[in-house]
């Protein structure tokens, strides 16, 4: 397959860009932040997303969705990255849909996927527990209890956790910390007894939550996929999420870069545009090259995911590792080249720096994914 967007994909990009740049420029995020908005995103915009078919983009057609793939989801994520629009798209439409579509029973799919497509159900994936993303280190315990399980433990960095109507929770039902075997995914009602959600205000003004599980009872029907064999399902879902976040970082990097190059052409010192100075020209050129190479790696990963999630691991690790380092470089150079103005809250550039830091940690940072690659290659 050619590593360029098809005509249909380009049209999708144009329509996503039109909507997002019009309705949710960076000022939209700024307004939510300054108003200390309780939801942290616009429900009205989410309805528009549903009407345009974005919320159910990955949902199979028989469950009311568009039945598109990871490349298309990446296209939407990239546009989200350009304006830093806070949206349930990642948690609900990418992560939860992938988990349900890949691991769910027919009944589970029929119950949840149509509601996600029509925008009436929001979901969140609860994975991380420690300071770093280490899914194999999952400790949250699922103890057998009657016909079901009791969940006890803590989750952190749950994207959109405070607004979710449905949680998908990774828990250890057997084995020891570090084992692949013994992980199980559960569908959990956030209103269940013993479950406490704390919205965490994050550096990037996007949504996340800490969730405490104190003997939360779930029945056998709540298991998503197979008991004790949830890791492969989880890994597939995470890889789809990683591809999506990498796309967001490509959009973010390109936007920061575009704004920075514009500034280099406008800002004058010593009687000329600062973009005439070779010291800055070469750094701008290096960043451009870095972004272009990362864009190719990310598209490669998204196509690999669409060709078969189980074989896409290496391409995804490359994409997420690259996207992390590229975005980090882009925002650092962006702030530096904006000089003092880059340090002000008035300029948007700082918002990009904050979001890049969060995206770097989300589902494994560059070090995590380089390490995954090395392990995969046996060194």
């Amino acid at each position, binding site marked *: 397959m050619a590593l360029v967007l098809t005509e249909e994909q380009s049209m999708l990009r144009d329509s996503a860009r039109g909507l997002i740049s019009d309705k949710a420029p960076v000022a939209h995020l700024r307004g939510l932040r300054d108003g200390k908005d309780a939801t942290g995103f616009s429900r009205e915009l989410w309805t528009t997303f549903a009407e345009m078919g974005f919320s159910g983009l990955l949902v199979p057609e028989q469950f009311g969705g568009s039945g598109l793939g990871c490349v298309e989801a990446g296209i939407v994520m990239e546009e989200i990255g350009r304006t830093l629009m806070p949206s349930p798209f990642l948690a609900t439409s990418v992560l939860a849909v992938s988990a349900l579509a890949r691991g769910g029973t027919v009944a589970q799919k029929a119950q949840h996927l149509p509601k996600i497509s029509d925008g009436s159900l929001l979901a969140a994936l609860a994975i991380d527990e420690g300071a770093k993303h280490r899914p194999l280190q999952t400790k949250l315990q699922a103890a057998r209890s009657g016909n079901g399980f009791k969940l006890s433990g803590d989750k952190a960095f749950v994207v959109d956790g405070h607004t979710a109507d449905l949680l998908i929770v990774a828990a250890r039902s057997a084995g020891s910390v570090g084992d692949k075997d013994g992980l199980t995914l559960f569908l959990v009602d956030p209103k269940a007894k013993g479950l406490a959600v704390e919205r965490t205000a994050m550096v990037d003004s996007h949504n996340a939550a800490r969730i405490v599980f104190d003997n939360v009872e779930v029945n056998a029907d709540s298991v998503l996929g197979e008991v004790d064999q949830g890791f492969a399902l989880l890994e597939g879902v995470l890889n789809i999420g990683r591809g999506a976040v990498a796309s967001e970082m490509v959009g973010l990097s390109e936007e920061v870069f575009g704004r920075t190059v514009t500034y280099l052409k406008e800002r004058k010192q010593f009687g000329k545009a600062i973009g005439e100075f070779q010291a800055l020209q*070469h750094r701008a050129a290096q960043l451009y090259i870095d972004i272009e190479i990362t864009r190719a790696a990310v598209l490669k990963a998204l196509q690999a995911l669409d060709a078969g999630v189980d074989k896409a691991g290496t391409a995804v690790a490359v994409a997420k590792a*690259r996207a992390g380092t590229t975005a980090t470089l882009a925002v650092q150079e962006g702030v530096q080249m904006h000089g003092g103005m880059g340090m002000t809250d008035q300029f948007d550039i700082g918002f990009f720096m904050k979001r890049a830091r969060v995206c770097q940690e989300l589902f494994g940072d560059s070090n995590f994914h380089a390490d995954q*690659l*090395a392990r995969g290659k046996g060194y």
Partner: protein
Amino acid sequence: MADLETFRSETRAWLGQNCPAEMRKPMTSDGDTFWGGRNAKFSSEAQRVWFERMRDKGWTVPHWPKEYGGGGLDGEEAKIVRQEMAAIGARAPLTSFGISMLGPALLKYGTEEQKKEHLPKITAGLIRWCQGYSEPNAGSDLASLQTRAESDGNDYIINGQKIWTSYANYADWIFCLVRTDPAAKKHDGISFILFDMTSKGVTTKPILLISGYSPFCETFFDNVRVPKSHVVGTVNRGWDVAKYLLQHERAMISGMGERGVGRPLGQIAADSIGADAQGKLDDAQLRSQIASFEVDEAALAAAAERAVDLAKAGQSHPAFSSAMKYYGTELNKRRYEILMSAGGIDALEWESERSKGGARPRAWLRTKANSIEGGTSEVMLGIVAKRILDLPGA
């Protein structure tokens, strides 16, 4: 799509039957590359067989038109041939500057007569070409070149000196930049001309490099007589041809790190340094350097693939090969720094059977030219800044 899948399976089958096992092993020395030319020698029977079969199929240059000895394949088909060759580790049957540099320029700027004269001899490996670009005082500032071609009836008389002429001492013909109008501004008085290296007045002198090898020469022209019909493109507009050719040269150099590497870096390092109980390389810093390198290497491979696809879709920027050249060469230098570190003191041996004549340190030193030849990294970044990013100034 169905046609392409058929083409892929036919290609796979044909390669499977026709590529000798020896030609599927990673190349270990310069002698494993077949360059063609009047004095070409095959280093093995397998190399001869492989070359001749590919030549007869038109696949020494699969995407050139059949009438010039190419395979007449379109972009998708040529990509499939590359992929299927890579899948079995097949070596290039023929490597030449005729294929990677002159050919594309002739296809775009050459007359029909010039194409018919030169392209079939390139695809058949009969003529080996060298590139007469740099001069002692025209390196990064190539357009300031001084080699002059003075009109004399139907001929030019060429005088001057080139430098860093790769393999000039083995080449049969040269494509050369000469100044045909000394009064014009420096970019405007240059012509692109072809001539036989056995012409009277041409001499070459190899330059000994830090690797101990002499892949480059000084090349001298003393009243060399060349017919005016050998000019490619318009007289005094040779800079256009030169730049177009450079795009192809840079694309080629950016891919130099990809070929015939053999075992993955992590394993090479583990053989030499050892691993801990969990199988992790016993040098945590080097391990992370290798991992970062491999991330970037895979990303560059994707970008190279995308560059071809973008060109096919008519969406590429003509200066993008400068971006790829910059990144590819810097990455190849990183590869060899890692290989030297992984090899430790074993990689310091310069002359011994054990070290294959110091192959690794010599290759390491050779890579240092990657970011100089074909335009330095700094020149590449300048081109990207000005032509792609449209930044102001000089």
